């Protein structure tokens, strides 16, 4: 087996290349910092097993950030068989600076210049052979979107990984004579370290001159790549700031309308398909199995399949923001506002990711500036309306409410955001979470949206959801059905349990409706299961959903803000420890209860 590490600056397309080579599904996006921890993919190529390791993007090795520490430690201690240095064809200079630094690890390298299509559009020409010779590493040029050089890249990686290399630093003759003194008595890697330690200024000058010497082989108007982006930013970040934010809000509004319309049609269609299938197949089944199919598959799973188009719309909206390059701009624009609430622009990015799924958001929070802000952001992430809650919200509003659906959707969606901002202010009154000083934000170039990438990314997320239905939600609802069928004194186990804890939910309004309470427990496994369970319990038992506006709204708000799913808690435990995950769960439980109670008291006034 060969271990191949993919290194490079942030947002140069390392994960995209791994996805292309190994046909994997690593998270990608047009913003720096998508990968914050080491990710892996496996590939069998010409009977050789390749273990591809995606390292977080770094700009250098100063040990200042977690990403730098992870990448440096990995390259030093794990010593992979080959490093694929992914570079940005439109911003080659800074990539080359890092490439020259990575050469010093003395590990066989392959240079991979990405974004050829964009560079070509901007008239950039790279003399590959000369550049390869200068760097003493094979350099390839292509784009992760096309298949042309996939095989060539894999062959080159295997060739290089079989080699033993010694890369001499790129120095001018005078500096080389000084370096020679170290190289004579020490191994190359140690000699470079000693040279950089004792001749820091010379080493820095030499690095710049080496980069400039490599840049001779890159011709064309390099500035042109940035010009278009700067022009757009001049409008979006300054004069047109309002237009930009309004456009995003309009997109969000359209997404809600589309979700609402899709929800009506899809739930009906999904149930219709399941009904037809059951009618065809279940006639020969015994009665108990027919009932199981009727309740679990039709009412529960059938409803959950209806969420797929809703999630497609939401993930498509997210993918457009991620791929276009707007994420970093939003972090920059929101930094100012978030600081009023003792948070940062990067925390806002975590919340934005959490609106897709809380788990990657928890992982992203580990890349924030300091420990205090990381923990604070991680504690607040579970209040975001993730895609599962979004689907439940739309379906519930569509099912229960007849009027003012959009207003109710907005209330449900923004309940979590409101809690986040208020809780952040309160947290600072209780304990002074140190908000980090501002940091440099790298702004990626705007990229034309590739529909293939957008749909593939969105499609993968929908496929993940379908797998979740098959493996997780099906078992959850089956378990619930089992509990419904175990009776104690003529009452099902789940009903008796829900009624016994109903006093806890009485102040929130929905304590009298045991199916509302019972539907909350499957939500711990996955939030979608709450809605599936509600539909299933309603059809099994004689209990019906409440017709009271205040009770339904109170239940909805509770569902939007309560304890996150077990996957989120597990991600919190993995990154921040068991005690932190327990604290986060308890905090969500307490805050959602208090907030829902306050909202309920407010609603019943009218």
């Amino acid at each position: 087996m060969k271990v191949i590490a993919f290194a490079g600056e942030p947002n140069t397309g390392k994960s995209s290349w791994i996805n292309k080579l190994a046909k994997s599904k690593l998270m990608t996006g047009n913003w720096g910092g998508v990968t914050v921890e080491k990710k892996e993919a496996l590939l069998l190529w010409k009977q050789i097993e390749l273990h591809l390791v995606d390292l977080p993007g770094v700009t250098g090795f100063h040990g200042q950030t977690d990403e730098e520490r992870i990448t440096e430690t990995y390259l030093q201690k794990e010593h992979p068989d080959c490093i694929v240095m992914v570079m940005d064809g439109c911003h080659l200079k800074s990539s080359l600076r890092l490439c020259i630094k990575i050469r010093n690890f003395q590990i066989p390298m392959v240079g991979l210049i990405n974004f050829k299509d964009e560079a070509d559009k901007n008239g950039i020409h790279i003399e590959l052979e000369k550049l390869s010779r200068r760097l003493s590493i094979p350099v390839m040029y292509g784009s992760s979107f096309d298949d042309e050089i996939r095989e060539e890249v894999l062959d080159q990686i295997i060739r290089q990984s079989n080699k033993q290399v010694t890369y001499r630093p790129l120095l001018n003759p005078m500096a080389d004579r000084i370096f020679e003194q170290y190289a004579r008595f020490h191994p190359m890697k140690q000699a470079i370290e000693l040279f950089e330690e004792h001749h820091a200024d010379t080493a820095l000058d030499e690095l710049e001159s080496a980069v400039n010497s490599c840049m001779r082989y890159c011709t064309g108007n390099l500035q042109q790549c940035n010009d278009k982006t700067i022009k757009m930013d001049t409008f979006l970040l300054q004069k047109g700031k309002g237009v930009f934010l309004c456009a995003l809000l309009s997109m969000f509004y359209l997404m809600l309308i589309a979700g609402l319309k899709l929800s009506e049609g899809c739930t009906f269609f999904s149930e219709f398909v399941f009904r037809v299938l059951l009618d065809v197949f279940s006639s020969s089944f015994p009665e108990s199995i027919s009932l199981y199919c009727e309740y679990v598959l039709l009412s529960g799973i059938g409803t959950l399949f209806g969420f797929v188009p809703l999630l497609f719309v939401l993930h498509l909206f997210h993918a457009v923001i991620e791929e276009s390059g707007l994420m970093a701009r939003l972090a920059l624009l929101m930094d100012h506002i978030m600081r009023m609430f003792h948070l940062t622009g990067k925390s806002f990015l975590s919340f934005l990711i959490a609106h897709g799924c809380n788990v990657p958001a928890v992982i992203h929070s580990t890349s924030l500036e300091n420990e205090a802000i990381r923990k604070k952001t991680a504690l607040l992430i579970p209040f975001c309306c993730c895609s599962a809650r979004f689907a439940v919200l739309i379906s519930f509003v569509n099912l229960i409410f007849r009027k003012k659906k959009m207003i109710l959707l907005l209330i449900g969606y923004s309940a979590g955001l409101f809690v986040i901002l208020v809780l952040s202010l309160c947290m600072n009154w209780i304990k002074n979470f140190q908000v980090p000083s501002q940091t440099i934000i790298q702004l990626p170039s705007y990229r034309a949206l590739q529909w293939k990438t957008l749909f593939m990314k969105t499609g993968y997320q929908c496929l993940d959801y379908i797998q979740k239905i098959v493996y997780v939600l099906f078992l959850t609802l089956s378990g619930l059905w089992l509990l419904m069928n175990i009776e104690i004194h003529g009452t099902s186990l789940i009903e008796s349990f829900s009624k016994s804890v109903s006093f806890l939910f009485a102040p929130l309004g929905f304590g009298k409706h045991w199916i509302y309470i019972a539907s909350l427990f499957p939500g711990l496994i996955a939030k979608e299961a709450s809605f599936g369970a509600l539909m299933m319990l309603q059809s099994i038992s004689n209990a019906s959903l409440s017709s009271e506006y205040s009770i339904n709204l109170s239940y909805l708000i509770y569902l939007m803000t309560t304890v996150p799913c077990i996957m989120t808690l597990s991600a919190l435990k993995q990154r921040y420890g068991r005690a932190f995950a327990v604290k986060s769960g308890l905090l969500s439980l307490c805050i959602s209860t208090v907030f829902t109670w306050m909202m309920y008291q407010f609603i019943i006034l009218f």
Partner: protein
Amino acid sequence: MRLSQVRKKGNYEIAQILPSVFTHRLLSFGFTKGNKVAFTGMIVHDYHYVVLEDKLLAVPNAWCTKVVV
């Protein structure tokens, strides 16, 4: 002149980076003596929007005080 004092759009050369806790972070983004930094004329809240060599960066004004151009 400090980069934070720059208000006029145009190209500047970094003359010096003053020692500070941010020095390493500035260096890791490529800020070094002799680098060309172009100010785009945009100040977004407390950030200077600059082009450093080929990178687009929003640099906090507090950090710009450490860069002499």
